[in-house]
């Protein structure tokens, strides 16, 4: 993960549309309940644009890009 940045998915909101998993399969996957979840892979700074787009476009606003600090 990029220093100070963390991806989270709120399982209470996720309706599993899967755009995040389709677009960035290295950073999102399906959990045992069939909901999207972060893989925990390190977040390269070059991916920040697409990550922010994925966060913006999540239809249920289930994804957050949070600062650890």
């Amino acid at each position, binding site marked *: 993960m990029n220093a100070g940045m963390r991806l989270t998915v709120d399982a209470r*909101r*996720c*309706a*599993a*549309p*899967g*755009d995040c*998993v*389709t*677009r*960035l*399969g*290295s950073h999102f996957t399906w959990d045992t309940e*069939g*909901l999207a979840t972060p893989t925990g892979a390190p977040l390269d700074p*070059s*991916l920040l*644009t*697409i990550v922010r*787009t994925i966060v*913006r*476009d999540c*239809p*249920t*606003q289930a994804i957050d890009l949070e600062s650890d600090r």
Partner: protein
Amino acid sequence: MATGAAVTLSDYDDIREALRDPALSRSFDKRSWDAGNIRAGIVSIIHGDEHRERRRIENTQFRRDRLFAYEKDLFPTVCDALVAALPVGEPFDLLRVSGRMSMALSAKRTGIDHDGSVESLDRLVELVLIFSKGSAILDIRGDRSKVEEEVRSAYRDFDAEFFGASYDRRTLAAAGGVASEDVLEVLIAAGFPRDLVLRECAIFLQGGTTTSSHTVCSLFDLLWASADSAESRLRLADDVAFAQRCVHETLRLRPTTPVIRRLAEEPTTVAGHRLEKGDTVLLDVRQAHRDPRLFGAEPERFDPERTVDPAVPLWGLAFGGGSHQCIGRSVAGGFPVGGDPEDQTADPAAKLFGLIAVQVLTLARHGLVPDPHRSPRLDDATDRGSRWATFPARVTGSVVR
């Protein structure tokens, strides 16, 4: 039934806020549910936890492996075969032919079996065009009860001609432990009642067909009228990324639902407007898509290459937003080019452009041109202004240069 005040929003950010407000639902006209509402209980209408659980079940049929299989393997072949079968130089209705292409895949995804003939596909298209009147029931001019009966009758025909056998076959398969591969199968496995499953499958067939076919017609209508039509026509036949931008620009200018409605299920505040339970909100997407601050100068012009604000997609809010965002958005529109190092490689095979882009590319390669003897006509049965009644066209057999 909503009887409260109505508020209209036309600012992009205000509409986005409203679409994401969990207190606002699409659950109109509850009073008539007991009398057999034509859309009772379908995913488009239900709200809150019930809606989220339904989407979780159905979204399994829209995952990455399925999207790639549809767009890369199945759909190009089906589209090319259906367009190649059109007699060169003979007029046809593009609305129906595009519907035929979309239906080939929509029926497979939904789980509606047919014999694969053009006649069967056309019959299904005929039925979903009636179903779509039910979706636009609040915009219908004139007697809504007649339209509701027409839709109920179409459901009965759909059940007798297609759904019943498909349902029985999958019920047997489910009993045998066969894995679910379409929407019908997952709904049966989840234990939903048959009448609801029928309505749900009808909305999936419709959603996978009519929006695409109206958008295909609107795209060519806009492209042929644009100043650089000849150049664009050539690019459309050769460049799927350009075809995708044409689709997104068409959806911006001609959203299928230009004004979205929402109902306040409880008191809430949206964009500074206090709403009480039962109030309605009208979201003027068509107007919001013409905001020059977001979509650049000359927002009325068809310009697939336009640069838009990085905070908005080129298609704007054409697929809706929030939890009710179109379930087929990624199927129909793909993912935008740019800023995506995993999907946007130099290899187009690794990228999803959306099925509408594949359709228009195929049509352009076969030389789609307007019918010189008849003009396209919009459907005047609703106030939407984005639905076609007929779109006469023909093919020349090769790219028009």
